[in-house]
C-alpha cells in the first residue's frame, strides 16, 4: 500500500500545483481556468519538440516556459480587454473556449503520438522504507509545497498580493486607485502558465501522456481546488496530493483499481454536499 501511495505522489504533486494555480487565478482574476493544464501541456510539448529537434534540455525547457507564459498572458489580456465585468458563468465558458482552442492547436502542432519525454532530473532514486522513491517525486513534492507557500505569502503579506486580491473583487475601484489591473491580470495568468508547465514537465516522463490526456489532468486538480472552495490554497494543495495518493494506493486494490479514477469525484461530491448543507444565498441583493 505504501509504495502505491508514494508512487502516486508525483501525480499528486502535479495535481496540487495545478490546483494552486487554479485557485490563484480564481482569487486574482475570478476565472476558474479549465484550460490550466492545457497551457502547461502546450509548454511541455514545445519543450519536448525542441528536445526532439536537438536543442539541449535546458534551452528547451526555457522555451517551453516562455511559450506557456506568453500564451497564458495573451489569454489574460484577451479576457481583460474584451470583457467588461463578465459573470462567473461567462468566464467559465470562456475558459472552456480556451481549452478547446489550445487542444486544437496542440493536436495540429504535436499530433504525432511518439514523443520522447526526457525527465528534467537525473534518474536517481533511493530506497525509503522498502519503497523506491525517485528524485522526481521529491522534487515534485517540494515544488508543490513551495508554490503553495509562495502564493499564500504573496497574497497575504505583500502589497502586490493585496492589490491583486482587491482587483478581483472590485476591479473598477482598484483601477481608480491608479493600479494597472491589466498588467496585474496578465502577470497572474502568465505566472500560472509557467508554473503549470513545470508541473507537466515533472509528471510527463512518468506517464507519457498524449496532449489530450495531459490537458485533462486538470480535472483532478479542479476537484482539489473545489474542495478548498476555490479560495483556500492549502486545502487545494493537500487535496491534490491526497487525490494522487489515493489513485496510487487504489491501484493495488483489485476490486477498486479499475474504477479508482472516479474516486476523487465521489469524494468531492460527498465533501461538497456536507460543506454546503446549510442554505447560503448568492451575494446579489
Amino acid at each position: 500500500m505504501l509504495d502505491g501511495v508514494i508512487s502516486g505522489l508525483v501525480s499528486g504533486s502535479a495535481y496540487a500545483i495545478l490546483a494552486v494555480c487554479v485557485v490563484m487565478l480564481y482569487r486574482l482574476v475570478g476565472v476558474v481556468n479549465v484550460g490550466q493544464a492545457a497551457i502547461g501541456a502546450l509548454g511541455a510539448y514545445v519543450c519536448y519538440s525542441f528536445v526532439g529537434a536537438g536543442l539541449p534540455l535546458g534551452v528547451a525547457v526555457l522555451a517551453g516556459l516562455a511559450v506557456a507564459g506568453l500564451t497564458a498572458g495573451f489569454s489574460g489580456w484577451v479576457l481583460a480587454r474584451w470583457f467588461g465585468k463578465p459573470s462567473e458563468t461567462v468566464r467559465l465558458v470562456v475558459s472552456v473556449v480556451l481549452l478547446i482552442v489550445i487542444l486544437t492547436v496542440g493536436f495540429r502542432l504535436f499530433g504525432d503520438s511518439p514523443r520522447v519525454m526526457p525527465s528534467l532530473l537525473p534518474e536517481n532514486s533511493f530506497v525509503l522504507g522498502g519503497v523506491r522513491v525517485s528524485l522526481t517525486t521529491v522534487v515534485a513534492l517540494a515544488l508543490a509545497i513551495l508554490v503553495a507557500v509562495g502564493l499564500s505569502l504573496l497574497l497575504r503579506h505583500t502589497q502586490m498580493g493585496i492589490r491583486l486580491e482587491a482587483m478581483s473583487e472590485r476591479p473598477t475601484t482598484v483601477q481608480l486607485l491608479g493600479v494597472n489591473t491589466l498588467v496585474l491580470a496578465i502577470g497572474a495568468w502568465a505566472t500560472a502558465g509557467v508554473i503549470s508547465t513545470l508541473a507537466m514537465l515533472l509528471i510527463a516522463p512518468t506517464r507519457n501522456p498524449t496532449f489530450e490526456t495531459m490537458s485533462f489532468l486538470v480535472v483532478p486538480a479542479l476537484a482539489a481546488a473545489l474542495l478548498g472552495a476555490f479560495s483556500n490554497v492549502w486545502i487545494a494543495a493537500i487535496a491534490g496530493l491526497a487525490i494522487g495518493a489515493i489513485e496510487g494506493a487504489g491501484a493495488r486494490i483489485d476490486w477498486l483499481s479499475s474504477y479508482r479514477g472516479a474516486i476523487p469525484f465521489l469524494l468531492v461530491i460527498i465533501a461538497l454536499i456536507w460543506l454546503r448543507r446549510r442554505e447560503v444565498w448568492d451575494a446579489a441583493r
Partner: protein
Amino acid sequence: MRLGEAKRILTPRRFAWVPFVVVLVTLGLILPVYWVYLFSTVAIGALIARSIGLVTNQAGIITLCQMSFAAIGGWVVSWIALAWPAAPFPLLVLIGGAVAALVGLLVGITTARIRGVELAVVTLGFAAALDLVLRQGSFPGVGTGTPVIPTAPFDDPRWFFALTWALVILLQLGIAALSRTAHGLGWTVVRVSERAAASLGVRVGAAKASAFALGALFAGIAGGLLAGQYGLLTTAVFTPLNSMVYLVTAVLCGASLFGGAVLAGVFGVFVPELLRRVGLPLDVGNALLAIGAFDVLRRGNGGLMEQLNARLQERAFRNVRVTCELVPLPPLEPLEPIEPLPPPEPSVEVAQTSLSPHAKGAIEPPLLEVRGLTIAYGNNRALDAVDLSVYRHEVHALIGPNGAGKSTFVDALTGFLPSYGGAVHLDGDSVHGLAARERARRGIRRTFQQVQAIDSITVDEYLRLAGGSAGTERIAAVREFLGLPGGAVPIRLMDIGSRRMLEIAGALVSRPRVLLLDEPAAGLAEAESFALAERMRRIPAEFGCAVLLIEHDMGFVRAASTRATVLDDGCLISTGPVSEVLDDPSVVAAYLGQELAE
C-alpha cells in the same frame, strides 16, 4: 388589451410548425440518402443542443456532462437491443432516455445546494469519472461485434430520419409547454438569482433537479438514437471534450430556442462538410465554433438565434407601450395612524375590541411582529434589538441613513440570513426556522433593491410565476392598478422603473399578507414617484395586505405611509406616526448631523 397586441398574441406557434414539418417531410422523401443521413444527424445534434439550452441557457446551470447522459442512453439501448433484439427501436430509445433522466434527477438532487462555477466543475468531474468507468469495458455488443440494428422500418435511412425529427419536435413541444407553466418559468428565475427565486416562492432545488432530469432525458434519447446510427458505440462518441464542444456550440447558437438548437445541429454537421469542400483540415472546426462562442459571449446579447429573436421582438413591439403608466388618482382622505398595542404583560389582560381597525385608536394584534431582532457579526452589530410592528391595514415606512441596517432587516425577515436573534411572528405564528421560500409562501413577499425581474420572459409569464399557487385571479386588477404594459410584452424591453413596478405587481398577485418593498421609488421621476406613493397608500385597502416600505424620499414616505420607524446604525431611534417621526430632532440629527438638529 389593444387590438394590436391581440393580433400578436394570436400568432400561434402551431402555424409555424406546419410549414416546418412539411419541408422536413419533403426533404426526407426527395433528398439523396447521404443528405437524409446528414439531416438525421442534424436532428440528433439539435436534441443535444436543446438539452444544453434547457439546462444552461434557461436554468443557468453550466453543464459539462450532457454527453455522459447521452452515453447512458446509448448504453441502455445497446444493452436492451442485445438482450431483446425484437424490441421496437423507438421504445428502446425512450427507455434509454428515461434511464438517463433518472440519473440526471439524481445528479440534480445531490447537487441542490451547489451552484455556479462549483456546480459546473462537479458536472465536469462527473463526465470524467463516467468516461473512465466506461473505458474499463466496452459498450454492449462491441465485444462480440454485434451492432445495434434498429428494428424495421427504422433501419431504412428515411424512416430513421423521420424518427429523429419526430422525437425532436415532440420533445420541443413538450418543453415549450412546460416552460410556460409556473414550474418551467421557475427555471428562468433560478438562472437570474436563486435569491429572487426563493422570494417568489419557487422551490429552487426542485427547479434545478427537474432541469437536470429533463436535460438528461433529451441527451439520453439522443444517445439512444446514436446507438441506432452507429451500431457500435465507443467512449470516443461521448467524451467530456465533446460535451464541451456542444456547450460552446449551444452558447453560440442560442439553444434555448428551438431554432437555435437546430442551428447548432446544422453547424455540427455542416461546418466539417464546408471545411472539407474548401480543403481546410477538420480539426479547425471545433476551434471555429469555440471562437464563435467567444465572440457571442463578448457581445453579451445571447446566441445567434437569441439575438435574432430579440431583434424581432423589438420590431414587433416598436409601437406598443412597454412602460408602466401611472395615471394620477383622485386624492384620498388621510388615514389615521393606528395606535400600537402596549407590549404584552402576563398580568394584564389584553383588551379585546370589536372596533373596526380603521377607527381611531384601534387595538388589534399586529400582522407582522418583530421583537428584539439582533444580528451581530462578531462585535459589529448590524441590528441591535429592534422592535417593529406592522398592522394589518397600514403602510409602514422603515427609514434611516445609509448603512442603518434596513435591508439587513428585510433580509432577516424574509429568511435570507442564516441566523438572527429575536423573534418574528406573522399573524401570531412564529416564522423561526422557516426557509426563505417557505416564508414567501406564507405570505411575506419582498422586492429587491436591485431589480430582479427576469429578462427572458414576458409580463404575463412573470405575473403567473409570481402568482404561483394563488393563481391568476388578481392579474387583471393588479395590471390596472399599476398601469402595466400588455401581457405579451417581453420584460427585456422595459425600463428599470417599469420593471420595479412589475416586481411589485408580481408580489401583489401572489396574495401576500405583508409586502416588504425595498426602495420602490428609486429611479422614478417626480410625477411618477408621487403617483406610485398614492397607489401605495391604497394597497392595504384594495389588496388586503400590509406594506413595509424602505425609502429615502421623504416626500414619498409622507404621501404613502401612515407610520414610520427609524433605524440608525442598527438601533431603533424612533417610531410612530409619520409626521411626528419626521419632525423628531433625533431623526433629523441621524440624517443630517448633530449641529443642524440643534
